[in-house]
């Protein structure tokens, strides 16, 4: 029998915990898809329906590159909007291209539930016990939540590091350490160690620095390649960045806070918008109240839930007096237009701030 090789699409740095989980739960080889490049996007766009949203294209590109490198089991995990149907469509497209592989989706009926996930892993690894499954799933979730916590600190401070790349280099070290996590206590020790190290990095941060919040569709928010390294570019302008959307939020926190989020929307929403629309409206309102200088909203071209949220966000922007910059991403690669708008946005919020002081 052929050796089983699992691969999955990229999103930000989350390949580390996912790889860890798959290594522990299955007896297959894990192959990371090559990092996203222009070629990934080209491959993905070539075989995708033209009007499908950009995460589909990146995922498909990742799959093709993995299959070319020899993977024969692919995984998908998506839900909330039409992303929930992507697994089936991508499977069909890849089969049509003549690849031979097995395809598994972590979500079933648009929901990420432990039972269905266990059943799915059982198909790959017949000997997997439920105890082992639960142990490593929770450990992985914990790892993700620690990573996200560190990321929040990095995002707020990376624009002010005294020595260039000090955050980036330390983050790489942390990722390496996380790969060899042994258990809960070990994981916690790693977190505490790096948390201290990150806070020791010398900063040159004024107390009244400009603050920008990032809201929007999850993939374009979290995958830096798909938003043309938005956060990196912002950091170069010396601003504090805040972003609530991360895997911890989407998988865990959001589940238990649906009502609270709707309440946070105040008079702007009476019902939920769907996918992450409501979350973004509430986040926009909360950040405006916290005194943020501006918001950046990202979405893929044709993202229905976010288009719905946008008209409400425009009202939030007017009433709460917070400017919002809207970005729509698709498979075009001209970075200059984005930089121009970002630069103008920065100039604007800076001028607004100076005028208010």
């Amino acid at each position, binding site marked *: 029998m052929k050796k089983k090789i699992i691969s999955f699409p990229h999103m930000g740095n989350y390949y580390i915990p996912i790889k860890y989980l798959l290594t522990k739960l299955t007896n297959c080889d894990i192959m990371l898809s*090559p*990092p996203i*490049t*222009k*070629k*990934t996007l080209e491959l993905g766009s070539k075989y995708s329906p033209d009007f499908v949203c950009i995460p589909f294209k990146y995922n498909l590109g990742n799959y093709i590159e993995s299959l070319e490198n020899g993977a024969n089991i692919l995984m998908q995990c998506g839900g909330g909007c039409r992303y929930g149907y992507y697994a089936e469509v991508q499977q069909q497209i890849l089969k049509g291209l003549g690849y031979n592989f097995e395809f598994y989706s972590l979500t079933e009926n648009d929901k990420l539930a432990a039972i269905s996930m266990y059943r799915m892993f059982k198909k790959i690894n017949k000997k997997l016990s439920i105890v082992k499954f639960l142990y490593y799933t929770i450990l992985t979730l914990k790892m993700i939540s620690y990573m996200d916590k560190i990321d929040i600190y990095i995002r707020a401070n990376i624009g002010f590091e005294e020595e260039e790349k000090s955050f980036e280099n330390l983050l790489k070290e942390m990722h390496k350490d996380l790969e060899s996590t042994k258990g809960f206590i070990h994981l916690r020790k790693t977190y505490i160690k790096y948390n201290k190290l990150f806070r020791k990095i010398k900063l040159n941060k004024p107390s009244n620095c400009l603050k920008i919040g990032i809201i929007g569709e999850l993939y374009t928010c979290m995958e830096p390649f798909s938003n043309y*390294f938005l956060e990196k570019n912002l950091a170069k302008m010396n601003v504090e960045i805040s972003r609530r959307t991360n895997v911890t939020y989407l998988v865990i926190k959001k589940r238990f806070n649906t009502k609270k989020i709707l309440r946070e929307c105040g008079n702007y929403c009476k019902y939920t918008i769907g996918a992450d629309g409501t979350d973004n409206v509430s986040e926009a309102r909360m950040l405006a109240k916290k005194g943020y200088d501006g918001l950046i909203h990202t979405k893929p*071209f044709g993202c229905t839930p976010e288009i719905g949220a946008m*008209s409400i966000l*425009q009202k939030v*922007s*007017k009433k709460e007096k917070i*400017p919002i910059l*809207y*970005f*729509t991403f*698709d498979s*075009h690669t001209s970075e*200059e237009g984005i930089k*121009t*708008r970002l*630069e*103008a*946005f920065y*100039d*604007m919020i800076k*001028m*607004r701030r*100076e*005028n208010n002081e």
Partner: protein
Amino acid sequence: MNNSYVGIDVGSISTKGVILDNNNKILASVYLWTEGNPISAVKKIIKSLELQIKGKNIVIKGIGVTGSARKLIGTILGANIVKNEITAHAVGTISIHPDVKTILEIGGQDSKIIIIEDGIVVDYAMNTLCAAGTGAFLSSQAKRLGVDVKEFGNIALESKKPTKIAARCTVFAESDLVHKAQIGYKKEDIIAGLCNAVVNNYLNNVAKEKKIKAPIVFQGGVSKNEGVVKAFEKELNEKVYVDECGHLTGAIGIAILSKKENSNIEFNLNIENIKFENKGVECKKCPNNCDIICIYKDNTLIDSWGNKCEKGDSIQPANVNQV
């Protein structure tokens, strides 16, 4: 000895240059087509500016560059400020109309709206992904109708019953236009309809949900089209101001910003005989294939950009020629 400041706005279609004195008065100005070659356009601009200030005992204390080719031209001229066109336009317009509240701008490739409160920019929007309803669209349709684009506005004003043309998307607008022409609508009605379509498209896309308050200033190449100006006034029920030097505001703005930089260097405009060359190199170190642009001044590399990771760092000055 009078201090003065140069502002250059290198757009996709046209390139504009001005020299301002200490009181923001225009000493010299040029406007010409970029013709796809920003470097030669800027050389021509500089030459013409120099001719206009010859013998006036002027010292240049700052150079500012804006527009889509700002990075390239900024490097070549050694500018002390390189800024995006949105900020430059706002600053330039405020210097001419201190009480302006809304700036509408439709250029060759892009259109934008800038909202100003108490002399500062509080909101702006720019067209995304699609160049519908910009100057480039109008000039291509003018060609189709066999009319000089400069005549467009005057012809539109003759119309009494503008034809309805779909405004949402240029593809639909174009097929609408062809259809209407074939079934016998008058040319002036179609042209007026097209002007209305541009305005509707702008208000529905770029200016969506923005509060347009008077005084309104309309800029960019399309502002020279009387038909579009009238259509805006009709739609907004407000007077829309178009300046004589509306095409220069970006350049004026960046010149003012360069003055604010307060640099003490004296700039030299003598670049006519210097050979500038830009080479595009593709990094082959990973499948991303970053396009790295290298700028040479008399065969020595002065700047490069476009590289995204450390792998491309080695593709710098010296190694470039081998690739």
